[in-house]
């Protein structure tokens, strides 16, 4: 009588007695890595922390790599999430139609590792600039510049915003929580051997009553309506018409009680725990991590007034977010900017000061990385969320 654990045991994709990774002596690579670790003792910092990624021999090879183009848009699935079985064919995922999985996978694996391993500053260095030089660059492809805080504008404290948001949440007819998202984003497509490119997209995810959902992604840049837009669908950057549909898909019913798929709570303490779990961590989030978690949240949920108020209170309670003043976001909306500088990246959160709703998040390189040709002021990513 097989219980569920026995069934699962029988489905171990990498059994100890299988063809790969079976117990035994170390292989050559493993021996070599051990030797390097033991040898690098002299090189390490006193507390063993603060080492730059490139210091480790095993890491150094993560970034430089094969000579073929790697447009690394597609992360592979996470270990913490479900995973296809080894050896199973992998369906192509997402808008990159026409890309053979065999080529896609090494790409994603490498880049995923690069992202995981390399510190934020270096990740930031994988940013744009170089890219769009040349007279033939179409206007819609132009890399966006960072938002500018209006000079002379009075910053509004996060406490004040949180108070207003709390008042809005109590008002009748306040916006309600809604699963799904509507976001316009400008983000980087990265490659090892080609300059990065900025890809503008609009994404709408809507959930239905039966727990199925639809996702529509179009290539568009609202700053340049009607003009061709750069896309890397198909694996190679090329221009597509404004509004070109990259993905239009309906997903079967699915359900999860884990953040960020579960509904976000409406009080600050529980929301903090929720965001930690959404970021797969058991430790308190730093301000940059918190902002990244907010982006994750808003990529899944359109917050109601209660959640926005909780989020505003949570942000107000932390340190490291500096009120900077008024900005007009890329969708033409006015908001207040809150800035965090960390590790060569400036994150700017844009909030509606009247309601506490998060309007957008911009990440900008603040430290030039000549090795990657990125300069201070290059925008790494920008998301503008809508209802």
């Amino acid at each position, binding site marked *: 009588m*097989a*219980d*569920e*654990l026995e*069934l*699962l045991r*029988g489905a171990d*994709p*990498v059994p100890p007695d299988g063809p*790969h*990774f079976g*117990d035994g002596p*170390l292989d050559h*690579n493993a021996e070599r890595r*051990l030797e390097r*670790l*033991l040898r690098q003792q002299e090189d390490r910092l006193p507390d*063993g922390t603060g080492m730059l990624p490139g210091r480790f021999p*095993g*890491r150094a090879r993560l970034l430089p790599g094969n000579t073929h183009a790697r447009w690394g*848009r*597609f*992360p*592979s*699935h*996470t*270990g*913490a*999430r*479900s*995973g*296809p*079985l080894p050896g*199973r064919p992998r369906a192509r*995922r997402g808008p990159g139609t026409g890309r053979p999985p065999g080529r896609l*996978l090494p790409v994603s*694996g490498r880049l*995923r*590792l690069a*992202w*995981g391993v390399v510190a934020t500053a270096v990740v930031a260095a994988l940013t744009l600039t170089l890219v769009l030089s040349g007279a033939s660059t179409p206007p819609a492809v132009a890399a966006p510049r960072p938002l500018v805080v209006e000079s002379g504008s009075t910053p509004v404290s996060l406490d004040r915003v949180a108070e207003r948001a709390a008042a809005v949440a109590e008002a009748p007819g306040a916006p309600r929580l809604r699963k799904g998202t509507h976001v316009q984003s400008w*983000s980087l497509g990265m490659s090892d051997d080609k300059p990065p490119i900025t890809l503008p*997209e609009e994404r709408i995810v809507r959930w239905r009553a039966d727990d199925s959902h639809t996702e529509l992604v179009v290539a568009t840049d609202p700053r340049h309506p009607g003009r061709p837009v750069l896309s890397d669908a198909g694996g190679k950057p090329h221009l597509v018409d404004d509004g070109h549909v990259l993905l239009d898909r309906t*997903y*079967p019913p*699915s*359900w999860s009680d*884990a953040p*960020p*798929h579960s509904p976000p709570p409406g009080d600050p303490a529980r929301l903090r725990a929720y965001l930690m779990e959404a*970021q*797969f961590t*058991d430790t308190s989030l730093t301000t940059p991590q918190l902002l990244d978690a907010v*982006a*994750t949240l808003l*990529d899944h949920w359109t917050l109601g007034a209660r959640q926005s108020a909780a989020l505003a209170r949570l942000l107000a309670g932390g340190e490291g977010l500096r009120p900077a003043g008024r900005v007009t976001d890329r969708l033409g909306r006015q908001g207040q900017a809150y800035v965090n500088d960390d590790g060569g990246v400036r994150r700017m959160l844009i909030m509606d000061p009247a309601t506490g709703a998060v309007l957008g998040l911009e*990440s900008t390189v603040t430290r030039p990385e000549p090795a990657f040709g990125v300069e201070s002021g290059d925008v*790494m*990513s920008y*998301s503008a969320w809508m209802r």
Partner: protein
Amino acid sequence: MSNDEIFAAAYREHYWAVSRYVARRLDGRTLDVEEVVAEVFTVAWRRRADLPPSPLPWLYGVARNCLANAVRGHGRRRRLLDRLGNDDTAHGRHIAAGPEADTPGAWVHEALARLSPADQEVLRLTAWEELGVDEVAVVLGCGSRAAAMRLHRARRRLRAEIDRVRPEAPTAEHPCMTAPKEHGHG
């Protein structure tokens, strides 16, 4: 033994177990597995002063964080990643029905994939890494009671999903499909 010697011993003893842990969560792509495992032991090396007497669950915990770091991304990457969680592939639905699709592995994985990441991990640690509750607690960084509770709930949910996704009652062509269907509900 010095910390360095203890580390080297743990490395030699557990290298392949950690590799399996990573491989089970990385789709078995050998090249990537090797790199993540290298990262795991690099982190472990930096923290070797913390290496407990039974280092394997601790190493799994490090590996878990490395995997999470490896997939924790920004902006577009993150959104794409999250979409993968709802992707047919991740749910195993892309697999064409065939004789091998009837094997327990295929639909047990499908059932597993329907659970939350947290549920999946506690189940994998128990079934694939063969850890006891106390060791699971080390990996997850929680107390033993919490781990036991998580496991209990995850098992219940896995059972429910298995009952939902397992193939229809065998017809005459598949009279030998017994093991997966022997368990009762509950």
